[in-house]
């Protein structure tokens, strides 16, 4: 499944989408960024509620396929611009983290 496929569901909307063809192979969940940094894997969809600029660095280091902001969390314009610049996909959903994980499990 690609990030583009995920967006065909009305449950998700794109905040930044520089590379919608990225494959999603697995899912990682976590909000403690230093923890996520060492554990999220390449091509994971990473579900979090954190929204500061550091999430972009973590996604970039771990090479995740996208960041999924749960609970309707969104980011400011500066972060959006940096995400485009660093080629990091960010989606948002109104589902909570558990619901998002269940939903993705059905698709993978």
């Amino acid at each position, binding site marked *: 499944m690609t990030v583009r496929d995920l967006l065909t569901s009305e449950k998700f909307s794109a905040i930044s989408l520089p590379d919608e063809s990225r494959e999603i192979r697995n899912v990682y969940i976590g909000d*403690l*960024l*230093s*923890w996520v*940094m060492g554990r999220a894997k390449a091509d994971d969809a990473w579900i979090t509620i954190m929204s*500061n*600029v*550091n999430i*972009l*660095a*973590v996604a*970039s*280091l771990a090479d995740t396929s996208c960041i999924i902001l749960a609970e309707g969390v969104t980011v400011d314009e500066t972060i959006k611009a*940096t995400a485009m610049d*660093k080629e990091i996909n960010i989606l948002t959903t109104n589902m909570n983290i558990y619901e998002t994980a269940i939903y993705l499990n059905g698709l993978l």
Partner: protein
Amino acid sequence: MKELSLNILDITENSVKAGATLTEINITETDDDLVLTIMDNGCGMTPEILETVTNPFTTTRTTRKVGMGIPLLKMAAELTGGEVVITSKHIAEFPNDHGTVVKATFSKKHIDFTPLGDVVSTITTLIQGHPETDFLYIHRINNNEIVFDTREIKETLEGVPINTYEVIKWIEEYLREQYLQIFS
């Protein structure tokens, strides 16, 4: 970081990498606040670098110089309503008085305050990994304090390396004992 002591480890490693011969780690606590100050006499940073250190994209992945240490410390402090202030004097401009001061303020009563954690392990890890440099560790809680200075220990050791297993073990036990006696 799950514990502030891991942030301390990260930031102090920056000081050692900057060539510091002495790094002071100072934790000052009141009932409401915790102020962490890490002061070194390393090469310091130019104003241009200093301006960008809190940005996690300062450098690329392969040439990363400061790592995520400062961005994560800043986030941890700001989550509690605190802040991080960094001042630095670069060796090129201050040949006799260079170094960096990282000062992080935390509000201990905030629900997102990260506990200090096992700071004794952090200190002993630093001493063990960097026997050639000196550390001055000060932890104050209200009117009580613990002070540990590797320069004093080295003087007593008379040439025995400070990172000898027995010495490190002794330092760890000594610090743990101090914590039991002074802060309990």
